[in-house]
């Protein structure tokens, strides 16, 4: 199981830069975000503001009576202080035009200096470290998390700081150490259990399903299991079938757990902190290829809402729902789509269980077309459940059938070309959007 990954591959954002030839209307909030990511400008403000996109101001209340208390669980956003970020919250198309003019300026105007730039795994580490500082009950257990520093460096330096009792190197026995984490959680500790690769957690499926998910229920509420089970999954760079598994589809029907998938350094840190603070068992899905993403995140403490989806790019024509690595494929496809004249609305659903049907519903009501892009298998994946949920709840608002692009139902092959064909590529997303928008 032991391997050290050094990823030199970064998602290439330079191709998505705002260019003068593209209409500012199409590009403003999103382009600003992309530009900010590269220039490290006031991107923090843009990125965070986008995630607090308030759908309530945009459309009528949704059909399903979701509790109003959700509004109290907004993201804690670091005050970037720029006008642009505040006006982005409204998201009205006319205001977007105004922002466009500001967008190109914001990157050049000096950064407010309220953020710091780091890679995704560093963001996870920061979140973990802050929570361990804050609460002495938080401990980390996993293979090679201690002295080795974590196979993806997420727990680097923590063992030196917190000691061997709080950052525990376990032997290779997923079943046992997951069970131990759950047993410890029954008494009040808050373990963060790391699977070196999500695929290895299949060995701990019994513990996760029966004990982690069900104990709160079968004990009549006597025990809470505030564990966080995290690890990288997804298709990497030719890692082979067994190390490229997407476990979100297997875990999604376990009652009693919550699942979230992070995709940017900002939401990685926020979700990690929220997951640790949550009283429910949370499974945090990271992706092997996203660990080296760089972004500027706020200095101030913030957490992300576990059940909320993130509006990546508001649009009018079609809703594209995605999560984790596919977000970047979608954004790449979005650039092409924008060139062709489409205006996709991209939502990173983030919360895989439960789905944020509030944000998704509002988007569907606006655009009337849905495309789901995911990395799970076709059969029984997250997209399959999401398709069912959208069809059941928002059927009357749809002008076209919900389309779902997912990975092929095959074990991930080793050969690079075959592996490329297994997952959804931007070209396929463009084709699908064109097809849906006819």
């Amino acid at each position, binding site marked *: 199981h032991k391997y050290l990954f050094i990823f030199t591959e970064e998602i290439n954002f330079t191709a998505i830069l705002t260019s003068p030839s593209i209409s500012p209307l199409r590009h403003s909030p999103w382009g600003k975000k992309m530009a900010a990511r590269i220039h490290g400008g006031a991107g923090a403000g843009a990125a965070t503001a986008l995630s607090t996109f308030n759908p309530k101001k945009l459309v009528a209340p949704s059909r*399903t*009576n*979701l*509790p109003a*208390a*959700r509004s109290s669980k907004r993201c804690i956003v670091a005050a970037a202080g720029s006008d642009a970020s505040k006006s982005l919250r409204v998201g009205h198309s006319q205001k977007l035009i105004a922002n466009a003019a500001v967008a190109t300026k914001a990157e050049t105007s000096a950064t407010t200096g309220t953020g710091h730039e780091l890679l995704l795994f560093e963001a996870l580490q920061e979140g973990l470290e802050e929570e361990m500082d804050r609460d002495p009950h938080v*401990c980390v257990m996993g293979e090679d998390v201690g002295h080795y520093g974590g196979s993806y460096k997420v727990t680097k330096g923590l063992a030196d700081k917190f000691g061997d*009792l709080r950052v*525990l190197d*376990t*032997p290779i*026995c997923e*079943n*046992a*150490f*997951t*069970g*131990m*984490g*759950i*047993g*410890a*959680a*029954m*008494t*009040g*500790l808050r373990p963060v259990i790391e699977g070196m690769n999500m695929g290895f957690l299949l060995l701990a499926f*019994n*513990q996760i399903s*029966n*004990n982690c998910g069900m*104990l*709160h*229920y*079968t*004990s*009549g*509420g*006597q*025990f*809470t299991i*505030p564990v966080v089970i995290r690890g990288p999954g997804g298709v990497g760079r030719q890692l082979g079938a067994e190390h490229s598994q997407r476990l979100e589809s297997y875990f999604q029907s376990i*009652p*009693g757990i*919550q699942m979230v998938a992070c995709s940017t350094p900002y939401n990685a840190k926020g979700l990690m902190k929220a997951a640790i603070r*949550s*009283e*429910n068992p949370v499974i945090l899905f990271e992706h092997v290829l996203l660990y080296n993403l760089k972004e500027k995140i706020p200095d101030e403490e913030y957490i992300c809402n*576990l*059940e909320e989806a993130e509006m990546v790019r508001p649009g009018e024509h079609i809703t594209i729902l995605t999560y984790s690595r596919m977000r970047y494929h979608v954004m790449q496809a979005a650039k092409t789509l924008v060139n062709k004249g489409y205006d996709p609305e991209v939502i990173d659903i983030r919360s895989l*269980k*439960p789905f944020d*049907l*509030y944000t998704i519903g509002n988007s569907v009501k606006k655009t009337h077309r849905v495309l789901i892009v995911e990395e799970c298998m076709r059969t029984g994946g997250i997209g399959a459940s999401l398709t069912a949920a959208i069809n*059941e709840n928002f059927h009357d608002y749809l002008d076209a059938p919900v389309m779902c692009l997912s990975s092929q139902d095959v074990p991930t092959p080793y050969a690079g070309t075959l592996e490329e064909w297994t997952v959804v590529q931007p070209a396929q997303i463009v084709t699908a959007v064109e097809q849906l928008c006819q």
Partner: protein
Amino acid sequence: LTPKKETFQTKSENGVITTLSPIHHRFTSLPPPLRFDRPNPDHNRNGRPFHRPPMRRSLTLRGDLIPGDPLLLPRMEIAANSLYKSKLIRGFCHLYDGQEALAVGMEAGITKEDAIITSYRDHCTFLGRGGELVDAFSELMGRMRGCSNGKGGSMHFYKKDASFYGGHGIVGAQIPLGCGLAFAQKYSKEENVSFVLYGDGAANQGQLFEALNIAALWDLPAILVCENNHYGMGTATWRPAKSPAYFKRGDYVPGLKVDGMDVLAVKQACKFAKEHALKNGPIFLLIGKTQTPNKTIVIIMDTYRYHGHSMSDPGSTYRTRDEVSGVRQVRDPIERVRKLLLSHDIATEKELKDIEKEVRKEVDDAVAQAKESPVPEPSELFTNMYVKDCGVESFGADRKELKVTLA
């Protein structure tokens, strides 16, 4: 492998000769009752005296028995038996009678802060930890009054305030949980131990050895107790296990073998194990010794269940009735205690009979009370899914009729 066909006879103290069945091939005889002056078999002794062996002399009977009634437990199990047959208890019901000495003796040797976690045969352990009879019967019958609000059932009794962590249906899954409890005790620097109970069937699970390794490695105050009732459902221990001496499987972890039908032996063993575990690490409660003292310890309790594995198992397809009644005559734990009480003049026959009557009445009252307690409300279906509302909605079968936000 052709088993040897021998017949074995034992003679009990009151002169009854029992012939054990030929089915019982590998067991040359059931282990004789432990007497106070006889040494226990050691493991890894290496010719050296046992490191502070458990005290076997000067066991006073008065006040050594737990405040609760050991007579209560078999009475409860028999009541559960009849309730199951009258279909008030459904599903699985695993009965503990025959093994009461274990629950009682363990309670006598430890405190309420020490954690116990066990498998699905948990009724008596729950009662031993201070659980109410009414709660137990209500849970068995699926009523609101039950210890898990009726949502757990026979296999999911829990009592958090008494550090009783259940109650688990999957064989062996509680072993890592129990080591986690011990880890939490070590983390919080409490001077308590965790007793992790499992059966002879679970002794062949991989998770046992995984958890044992971690417990010994991290020096956790875990005591792994194998309740060896000689049958893993229908399979006698010598059939699935190459080495039925489960206490020797610890290797680097000391193991202690105890006669689980002798309540005082169990009590002493648990006391000893607790002291050892706090100082030296894990121990298998099936007595033994190692050179480098570890905290973890493994204990094997040699015990026996009279009923089948569960209510759906008659218990007679893999053993004969003679064997069961033989054990009952020779090694019954309650009988043994009764004889000790009578022979040492601590109680008279009449007093014991009165206690029995009281117990019977108590159990009948509890059953009646439980029968009358209400069934859970439909809204209870959705409570205790998540600790804090996370907005998850749940629907009825047609997605329209019942809609609730999971709490």
